[in-house]
C-alpha cells in the first residue's frame, strides 16, 4: 500500500539544500496544493459572470453565496480535523439538527423567563460537543469503526430530535438573539464573520498548535504516535468533540438564519461537508488536512448552486453537474497536490 502511494502521485523533486526557495515553498505549500481548487473556483465565477452577468457578479450575490456556505463551512472546519486525524463523522448534520432542536426548545420554554439569549447558544454548543464526546468515546475506547459509530449517531440523533420536539418546529422569538445573528457588521452579515472567525481559528489550531500537530500525527500513523507517547485515544475524543462543537455552532447559525429549530435541519449535510473537505484536499485516509482547501471546497459548492439558480436550472441538472464536478475536482486536486491519495 505504501508503495502505491508514492507511485500514484510522484513526489515532487525536493531540493536537498536546507531552505527551499520561496517559489517552491509557495507551490509545495498551500497555494500550490490548492491551485486546482482555485482554478475550479475561477472557472465557476467566470461561468457565472458570463451567463448571469451583473446579477451574479454583485456584492450582494457574493454575500448570498458566502452566507449560504457559512453554516456548512463551519462544520467543514470541524470535519477537516476529524478526517485529518484519520476518522470520519457522518453525524454532523443530525447533530446540528439535534442541537438546534434542543436550543430552540429551551428558548421557547424560557420565553417568559428573563434569561439571556446566550443560554440558547450555550445549549446548542453543549449538545453538539456532547454528541461529539459520545462519538469519540465509542470510537476511541469502544473501538467501533468511525463510519459505523457516527452512522449510528446520525440515525439516533435524528430520532432523538424528533422525539423531544414531537416533530414540531420551534420558532425562536427571542429578539436579542435574532437581532444579533441576523445583523450586519461593516456591511457583512454576522454569520459570515462567524464563519471567518471559525475558519481562522481552525487554521491556527491545525497549523500552529500542538493540538494540530497531534491531529496530523495521529492520522498519519496512529501506532507510531501512540508509541511516541501521544495519548491517541484521548486525542481522538477531542477531535470528535471539536467536530460536534462546530455542529453546535452551525446550529446556532441555522437558528439565526431560519429563526427556527427543527429535527430536519442539517439533513444530508454530512455528504456536502465531507465532499467539500475531501475535494478541498484533505486526505480521506488521514495524515493531511487543509482548512483553506475545505473553505474553498464549500465555496465552490455554494457558488455552483448559485450559478445554477441564476440560470434557472433544475435541481436534477444541478445534481448531475455536482456529481461530475466532485470527480473532476478530486482529479484536479490529485494532479496539483504534491501527493495524491491512494485509489481506495
Amino acid at each position, binding site marked *: 500500500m505504501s508503495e502505491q502511494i508514492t507511485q500514484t502521485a*510522484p*513526489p515532487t523533486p*525536493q531540493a536537498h539544500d*536546507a531552505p527551499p526557495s520561496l517559489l517552491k515553498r509557495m507551490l509545495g505549500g498551500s497555494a500550490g496544493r490548492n491551485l486546482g481548487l482555485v482554478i475550479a473556483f475561477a472557472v465557476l465565477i467566470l461561468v457565472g459572470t458570463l451567463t448571469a452577468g451583473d446579477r451574479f457578479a454583485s456584492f450582494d450575490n457574493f454575500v448570498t453565496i458566502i452566507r449560504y456556505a457559512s453554516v456548512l463551512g463551519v462544520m467543514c472546519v470541524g470535519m477537516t480535523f476529524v478526517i485529518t486525524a484519520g476518522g470520519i463523522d457522518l453525524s454532523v448534520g443530525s447533530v446540528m439538527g439535534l442541537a438546534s432542536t434542543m436550543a430552540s426548545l429551551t428558548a421557547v420554554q424560557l420565553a417568559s423567563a428573563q434569561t439571556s439569549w446566550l443560554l440558547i447558544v450555550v445549549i446548542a454548543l453543549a449538545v453538539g460537543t456532547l454528541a461529539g464526546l459520545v462519538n469519540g468515546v465509542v470510537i476511541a475506547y469502544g473501538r467501533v469503526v468511525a463510519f459505523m459509530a457516527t452512522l449510528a449517531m446520525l440515525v439516533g440523533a435524528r430520532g432523538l430530535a424528533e422525539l423531544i420536539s414531537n416533530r414540531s418546529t420551534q420558532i425562536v422569538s427571542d429578539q436579542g438573539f435574532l437581532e444579533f445573528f441576523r445583523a450586519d457588521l461593516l456591511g457583512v452579515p454576522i454569520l459570515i464573520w462567524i464563519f471567518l472567525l471559525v475558519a481562522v481559528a481552525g487554521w491556527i489550531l491545525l497549523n500552529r498548535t*500542538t493540538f494540530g*500537530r497531534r491531529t496530523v*500525527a495521529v492520522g498519519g500513523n496512529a501506532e*507510531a504516535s501512540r508509541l511516541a*507517547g501521544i495519548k491517541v485515544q484521548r486525542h481522538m475524543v477531542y477531535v470528535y468533540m471539536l467536530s460536534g462543537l462546530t455542529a453546535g455552532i452551525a446550529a446556532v447559525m441555522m437558528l439565526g438564519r431560519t429563526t427556527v429549530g427543527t429535527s430536519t435541519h442539517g439533513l444530508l449535510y454530512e455528504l456536502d461537508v465531507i465532499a467539500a473537505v475531501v475535494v478541498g484536499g484533505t486526505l480521506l485516509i488521514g*495524515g493531511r488536512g487543509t482548512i483553506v482547501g475545505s473553505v474553498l471546497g464549500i465555496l465552490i459548492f455554494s457558488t455552483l448552486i448559485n450559478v445554477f439558480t441564476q440560470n434557472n436550472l433544475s435541481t436534477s441538472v444541478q445534481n448531475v453537474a455536482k456529481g461530475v464536478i466532485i470527480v473532476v475536482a478530486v482529479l484536479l486536486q490529485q494532479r496539483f497536490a504534491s501527493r495524491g491519495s491512494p485509489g481506495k
Partner: protein
Amino acid sequence: MITVDHPLLEVRGLTKSFAGVKALQGVDLSVRAGEVHCVLGQNGAGKSTLIKTLSGAYQPDSGEIFWQGERITIGGPVAALERGIATMYQELDVVDGLTIAENIFLGHEQATGGLLHVASANARTAEILTRLGHGEISPRTEVGSLSAANKQIVSMARALSRDTRLIIMDEPSAVLDSQEVENLFRVVKELTAQGIAVVYISHRLAEIRRIGDRITVIKDGRSTATGLSVTDTSTPELIRLMTGRDVDNVFPAAEPIAADAPVVLSCHELGVRGVFRNVSFEVRAGEVVGLAGLVGSGRSEILEAIYGARRSTSGTVTVNGEALRPGSVAAAVAAGIGLSPEERKSQGLILDEPIFKNVTLSSFGRFARSGFLNERRERQAAREQIEALELRPANPDMVTRTLSGGNQQKILLARWLVHGTAVLLLDEPTRGVDVGARAEIYSLIRRLAEAGTAIIVVSSEIDEVLGLADRVLVISDGDVLTTTNANDIDEPGVLDLVMRGSAA
C-alpha cells in the same frame, strides 16, 4: 557447477528513476543457473529497485534484460512468473485475511472454471511446507495470525509453488532468527542442487560468506563490481566497494561500568498473561543489557510492557526509584523511557511527514508556548541531532518516506536524543540496516551508554546482542533462562540454552 552457453539471466545498463530520484543508473548483473548470486549495497543503493524491475513490478527506463540468451521485456508480475522468476519481496507481501494455502496459490489458484479445489491446494501446500521443514503448520492457518518469521516462510513456499528457474530473495533473513536462517540455507542449497538460481540480498556479510557463490555490488544505483567470487573477495574490500570507505565492522569496546553506577530501571516479576512471566532484572546507568532469544520468544513484548505500550498483568517497573503506572506510554515517556520499535515504518515513523517532525514527535510540546508551536526552534533542535548523527540527507524538511532504512533508524534515535531519556529500549535497531550505518549505530549506542543512559537491546542476531551488551538475558518462550555477562557466553552457548529451554 553447471556450465551453459548463456547465463540464465543477464542484465545490462539498467536504469530507473522515480520522479527526480535516480534509483538505478546503469546496473549490470549476470546470474548462472544453480548459483547463489548475492547482491550487496548500502541502504538506498537500488537493490530492491533492481529486483522489482526483474519481477515485473517496475518497468525499467532503459537497459537490456536477457533470459537464457534471449532479449526480453518483463511487462508485469505475470510475465516474470511465467518465465520462472519468482520473488520474495522485502516488504512482506502476504495477505493477512487468507489462509497459507490461499496465499501460496494467489494468482495461480488451483481451480477449474473459476471453482477452487480447496483440498488439493491444501495438500500441495502441506507438501511444500514439509519440504521447508515446517510440516507442523496447517495450510488452513490464516496468515494474519502468523509471526513475521512464519510469514517469510509462506513467502518462500509461494515461490516454490511455481515452476521456477530463478528465485529472488530480498533480505529474507531480516526477520529470521539464527535457527530459521539455518533452515533457509538448507532449502537454498536444495534448490541450487536442482539447478535453480537464487539471487540473495542481505546486509549480513557473514551470511553471504556461508551461502553465496558470486557477488554483485551496487553503489548509488550503479553496479561497481559484478560476478566477484565470494571466496576470493575479502570483507574489507566488499565494504569498500559498497561504501567507498573503510568501516570498522567491530563492536566498539565497552568501558567497564562504574561500580557505583545507580540502578535506573528495575523490573520486578513483570509478566503479561499468556506471553511472558516473572521477568526481573535491573539496568544501571551506562549499562547495555541485551535480550537474546528466538523469534517469538517474547522479547518485544517485554520491551512493550516496560514501556507501557502493553499492559502488564503482574509485576512492577521502576525508573529511578519510582514505580510506573502499567499500560501508560505517556507515564513511561515522562519518566524518561524511550522506545525504538521493531517495525520502523509501521510503528515508528510518520512516513509522509518531514524528518524534523518525526524527530520531535515525542517532545514537540516542549517547543510550544501555551499550545502554540515554535517550528523554528523545533527545526533547530532537530537539525542539531541530524548533524550529530550524520543523518543523510541532512535536510530537516525532507519527507521521511524517501530515506534509507539506516537513516530512518537514526531518526528514531534522534527522537529520544532530543527528548532526553534515562532508559532507551531498542528493538531490532539494525534490522535491514547496511554495514556502514550499522557500525555508526553501534558506536552511537555505546556513546549514549557512556553518557549514562541505561539501554536494553533486542536483536535476532545473537552476535550483535553479545557484541553490544554488557549483560545478556536469554529468553525462551517467555521465560528468562539465564542472566550473564556478555563475555561469559558465546553464540552456540546461547542457542544451546534456548534449545534446551524450549524442549523443557
